[in-house]
């Protein structure tokens, strides 16, 4: 299906940094006209030039264009969002309390999973996200029913966002004997193998990780594991995962979500772990928990690909969560005191799959002709302001189509 061909006029793009005494003190912008064709950016011309065209024109009114955002860790199938308020209970047995709760909760919620997932996706789109990775429960409690509901929603939203689905054995791949269910899920639309705490939940790090890897290899699927296990228990798990990644030749195809253990060790040690992750192309996704944050800027500096995700958006695990990736980037900046112009602007990378508008030398590296027409217009003068002030999102585009908002 070919997309519309049209011009977006008066688009504000960042063109370079302003310097004072060698430090970046501001960001330069100029106005451009951008031609969209076949769902990609086909031409970028200065707005100083008179535009003579028969193509339809959409005036961007000098709003700043940024690459659209990515929420790389969410649970669309478990949210209470748009439903009645309910606070989580006090988990007297920790994560086990939450798993026990799911035995009753998931079947009860099944009839509203689709509706809430759609409402949550609408929220994410309004916030400027068009690429989403959702972890979907696949376990003996709910079988493949949450997956079916999630896939219905993904299909309904395929013109608005790309959503990848992780087959997530929330109750433990081994603990809940979910291996064949996960295999089934991967045959039926899930594209990644999930997992959770091979030590604490499954009780057998080696067997759990090996099973994950086997499932991934036989289905040619990527991996995204939730690892909350603390301290050196978590670090050991990362090391075994890295070794198995190398054996299977799965470099660049494995993500660790949360990776909380990295917050428990010294920066020197974390730096060594980062080297290992880079070597195996293992990426990290964090929800930037403000009580315990892993050293994200260090990981990034070492070359680890780090993405952010919202995780819970009001569910039985957590009552918080806003579904706003730009807010997450702002929290990350605040958490790590990234408050100068350059650092703030570069923080965007964590919510765009590594894309920033300017590189370290202040050259424009986004957008380029040929890039997917996935972008968001914000009411800001530059990326740095957008991140620090979480400026409002005016319109979100996916594959060249306006999917929410108005210009």
């Amino acid at each position, binding site marked *: 299906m070919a997309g519309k061909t049209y011009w977006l006029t008066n688009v504000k793009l960042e063109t370079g940094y302003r310097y004072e005494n060698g*430090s970046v*003190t*501001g960001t330069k912008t100029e106005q451009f006209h951008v031609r969209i064709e076949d769902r990609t950016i086909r031409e970028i011309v200065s707005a100083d030039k008179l535009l003579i065209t028969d193509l339809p024109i959409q005036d961007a009114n000098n709003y700043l264009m940024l690459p659209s955002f990515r929420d790389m860790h969410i649970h669309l199938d478990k949210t209470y969002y*748009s439903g*009645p*308020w*309910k*606070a*989580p*209970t*006090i988990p007297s047995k920790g994560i086990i309390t939450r798993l026990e709760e799911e035995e009753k909760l998931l079947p009860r919620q099944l009839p509203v999973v689709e509706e809430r997932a759609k*409402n949550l996706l609408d*929220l994410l789109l309004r916030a400027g996200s068009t690429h989403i990775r959702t972890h979907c429960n696949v376990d003996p409690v709910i079988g493949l029913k949450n997956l079916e509901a999630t896939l219905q929603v993904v299909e309904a939203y395929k013109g608005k966002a790309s959503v990848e689905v992780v087959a997530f054995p929330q109750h433990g791949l081994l603990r809940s004997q979910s291996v064949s269910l996960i295999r089934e899920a991967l045959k039926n639309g899930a594209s990644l193998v999930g997992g959770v705490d091979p030590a604490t939940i499954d009780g057998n790090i080696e067997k759990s990780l090996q099973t994950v890897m086997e499932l991934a290899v036989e289905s040619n699927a990527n991996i995204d594991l939730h690892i909350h296990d603390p301290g050196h228990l978590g670090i050991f798990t990362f090391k075994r995962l890295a070794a198995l990644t190398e054996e299977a030749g799965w470099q660049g195809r494995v993500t660790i979500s949360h990776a909380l253990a990295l917050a428990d060790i010294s920066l020197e040690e974390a730096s060594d772990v980062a080297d290992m992750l880079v070597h195996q192309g293992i990426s990290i996704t964090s929800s930037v928990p*403000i*009580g315990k944050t892993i050293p994200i800027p260090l990981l990034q500096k070492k070359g680890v690909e780090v993405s952010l995700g919202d995780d819970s958006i*009001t569910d039985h695990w*957590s*009552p*918080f969560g*806003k579904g706003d990736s730009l807010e997450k980037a*702002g*929290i990350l*900046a*605040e*958490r*790590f*005191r990234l*408050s*100068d*112009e350059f650092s*703030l602007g570069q923080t965007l990378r964590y919510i765009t799959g590594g894309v920033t508008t300017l590189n370290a030398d202040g050259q424009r590296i986004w957008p380029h002709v040929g890039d997917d027409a996935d972008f968001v217009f914000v009411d*800001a*003068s*530059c990326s*740095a*302001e957008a991140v*620090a*002030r*979480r400026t409002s999102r005016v319109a979100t585009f996916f594959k060249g189509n306006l999917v929410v908002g108005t210009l």
Partner: protein
Amino acid sequence: MSTAFWLTNTTLETGYQNNNGVVTGTNTERFHLLIDGGKISKIIPVTEAITDDFPQKDVKGLLMLPSFVEKHCHLDKTLLGDRWRSVTPVNSIFERLEIEKKVLPSLETTTQERAEKLLNNYLTSGVTHVRTHVDIYPEVGLKNLEEVKKALQTFEGKLSYEIVAFPQHGLLRSNAKNLISEALHQGANYVGGVDPATVDGDIEASLQQMVDLAVEGNAGIDLHLHDADHLGIFTMKRLARLTKEAGLQGKVAISHAFGLGDIPLSQAKGVAEILADAGISIITSVPIDRKFPPVGLLRKKGVPVAVGCDNIFDVWSPFGNGNILERAGRLAEISGWVDEQSLAQTLSFITDGKTPLNHQGEQVWPNVGDDASIVLVDASCSAEAIARRPGRVMTMHKGEIVSDSFGERIDEK
């Protein structure tokens, strides 16, 4: 004072739902409230008919909460309303002070304009009382105080306020004693201060001068204390001693008090007892880039705690927005308070201690005779308001509607 009117169909919290002694939810009912003379003069259940002819404003089931208190802001420092600028990296607080001294007078907007912009944000986010610090130092004299007072005067009747005369460049270091004293005569109600050790270089002399100024000016004290771990703790203990000696119990606050977050909880307990005994309260901005005082422990020990936004887009920080409800939500999140009761009670940190329900779930607010200083929010209960930070639909200060977006309410659900 405007004439009396009814707020009809407001939702009030009436009790907790319990399951085997565990709070699992909040009960609410709808009421009509008569607002008269700036007070809540009648509260009747909706099953009872209104028999008088006073005008009625139907709020269609919105939840009513006590309006919020912003306990730590700097109306004279914000850049809101001016163009974007990020923060210049510095090597010390002293470099930052020099930058601020240069930047603020160079802006195209006036201090008054920017302060008014922030005050407006406060009203729309449900705040009707602010405590603002105002920089007082030799180069600027009382100019910031005058500008902030002008801004506050344009908001007369819309919110109440307290002003701290804040020697940002050091009470001793910038020799600001006489100016602070003058500020206390010109409308400031609190003596401020900053890091008696790091900034002033003499803890004892700095604290004594602060206390002397407070006693002479019949004022309270609000000290910015960032000094870390035992340096901060020592300063707190000295201030507690001087507070008692001067009879200033109940009139002294320590903002930030980072030291309390740096020491083990077992030690913080003892310090909390000293603070409680001296009637010293703690104000925190709930920073996420460093440890801060253990709020739960302080509350348990009887130390009053309040939350304030502090930096709101200024030369110190590009972050912050004046949304104090969001700040309270952040406190709950960082403290791991996720259950119904813990979330609901978090409200007390932004309402000067008021909550609709007490710990036992008894309705303790609002009462007939209370000031009609309230905020109506799009939530089912206090707990939801803290966790979800829903839209503030209407803010009322002593019976006056000071912010109202009822007409343009979009239901995002």
